């Protein structure tokens, strides 16, 4: 079985990425997507899946993505869409990171820890497929050394084939050709977002909505804050926003008992906080124009 973590050697150092543009494409060719890179980074730091190391990996990944961005010309459309996927993954990561380590009495905490486990499960799953891909590659290569006998029919058998019936006029034949040569996929190349499972939701936008409501009103229950959410995704994003705000110490949570109503209270000074200084990793990383996740 191939050890996929040798990939770590191939992980580009974010520092040198800007220094030498020449090697840029070569390094890009060394990984086949964010999960690949993430796996490599994790291997490089020899995790132990600890909060601290997770943060290192997350930061390094974001740093790497930013460097790529600064280089500029490397941002092809598919890479941009890859980034959208990894941004969603990092949201999961970040959500898990925001939790105080070790305190798992609370059921929601447990749920969040499971979310983190889920992310690692996804990475492990990807790692499994990577190993299987290596197996496929080896097998295909070995098999390519065998050549099947697929010779033309011996002339005396070919002569036995029924006389071909050909009833197409040149015009009809041209029609078939025109249809066959027609581009199959008429949709113009664009960033695929269907794998994002639902309409993109902007963290920043949701943060503005929540910030406005909390700063200009009394404490609100989480239920009330998501009452107008048009989809589950919006609920999830608003929850993440609240976690962010909690980290920035501008909100406080009150929950009298597990699973009871969660009340959110504004504790920060209005001028000291804006949606601009929030979760910049998520928002600034999506430089390609137009920013797809900003579109509603």
């Amino acid at each position, binding site marked *: 079985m191939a050890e996929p973590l040798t990939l770590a050697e191939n992980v580009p150092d974010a520092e040198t990425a800007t220094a030498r543009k020449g090697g840029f494409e070569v390094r890009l060719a060394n990984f086949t997507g964010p999960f690949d890179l993430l796996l490599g980074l994790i291997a490089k730091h020899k995790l132990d899946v600890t909060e601290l190391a997770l943060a290192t990996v997350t930061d390094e990944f974001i740093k790497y993505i930013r460097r790529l961005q600064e280089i500029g010309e490397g941002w092809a459309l598919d890479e941009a869409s890859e980034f959208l996927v990894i941004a969603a993954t990092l949201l999961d990561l970040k959500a898990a990171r925001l939790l105080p380590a070790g305190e798992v009495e609370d059921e929601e905490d447990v749920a969040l820890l499971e979310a983190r486990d889920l992310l690692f499960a996804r990475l492990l799953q990807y790692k499994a497929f990577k190993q299987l*891909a290596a197996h496929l590659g080896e097998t295909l290569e070995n098999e390519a050394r065998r050549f099947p006998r697929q010779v033309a029919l011996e002339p005396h058998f070919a002569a036995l084939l029924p006389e071909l019936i050909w009833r197409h006029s040149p015009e009809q034949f041209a029609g078939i050709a025109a249809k066959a040569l027609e581009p199959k996929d008429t949709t113009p190349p664009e960033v695929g977002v269907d794998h994002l499972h639902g309409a993109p939701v902007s963290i920043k936008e949701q943060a503005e909505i929540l910030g406005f409501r909390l700063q200009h009103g009394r404490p609100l229950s989480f239920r009330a804050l998501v009452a107008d959410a048009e989809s589950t995704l919006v609920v999830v994003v608003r929850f993440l926003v609240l976690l962010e705000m909690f980290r920035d110490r501008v909100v406080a949570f009150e929950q009298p008992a597990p699973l009871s109503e969660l009340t959110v209270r504004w504790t920060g000074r209005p001028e000291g906080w804006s949606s601009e200084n929030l979760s910049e990793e998520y928002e600034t990383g999506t430089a390609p124009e137009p920013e797809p996740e900003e579109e509603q």
Partner: protein
Amino acid sequence: MSDYEDAVAGLAALGERPGGARAALEAVLMVIDQPATTEELAAGLGLGTAVVDELLAELQQDYNGYTVKAPGTDAGGSPADAGASRAPRGFELRNVAGGWRIYSRPEFSDVVGKFVLDGQTARLTQAALETMAVIAYRQPVSRARVSAIRGVNVDSVVRTLVQRGLVEEAGTDPESGALLYRSTSYFLERMGIASLEELPPISPHLPGLEGIEEFFDAERM
């Protein structure tokens, strides 16, 4: 020869020809240009599938250098060479994609490669291999699901795999309406395996992920 009497007549006639039924099977194997199932071969020869299976196994051993019962004799091998091991032939008979086919022996790939321009296929990229692996193990599967597992958009890679004939469309998901994909029999051919069951099991590669599948399904990834 669907008719019983025809079949019997065919069988009798084959036995009288030089090399018998075994040589007849060999003759047919010489002209097929894609794997032929035991059933197809049996129907073409007017023989039962059990007989053909036995003959195929004999030929396979014979080509690999193990002397089996002498061709043309119905009972037992000739004492002279029964059981004697010889050098293998330059070709082999294999069961791939559910069918039988003659291949040149891999030891001579360099030599044969000089003569066979055609059929040489470019190697798959890492991205294509990973996508192929996910489709092979999760089929039928949508592109969105493959994307979720690989963490990247796989649209163009899947298109390439379809063009290469390794992957094909397999209807739509009844719930989401998404196009589903599966591996083709050409994929099995290229892998040199008879069926998907011969792929190595995925479980040893997934440490402690029991129940994770339900998670992913629930998440509709």
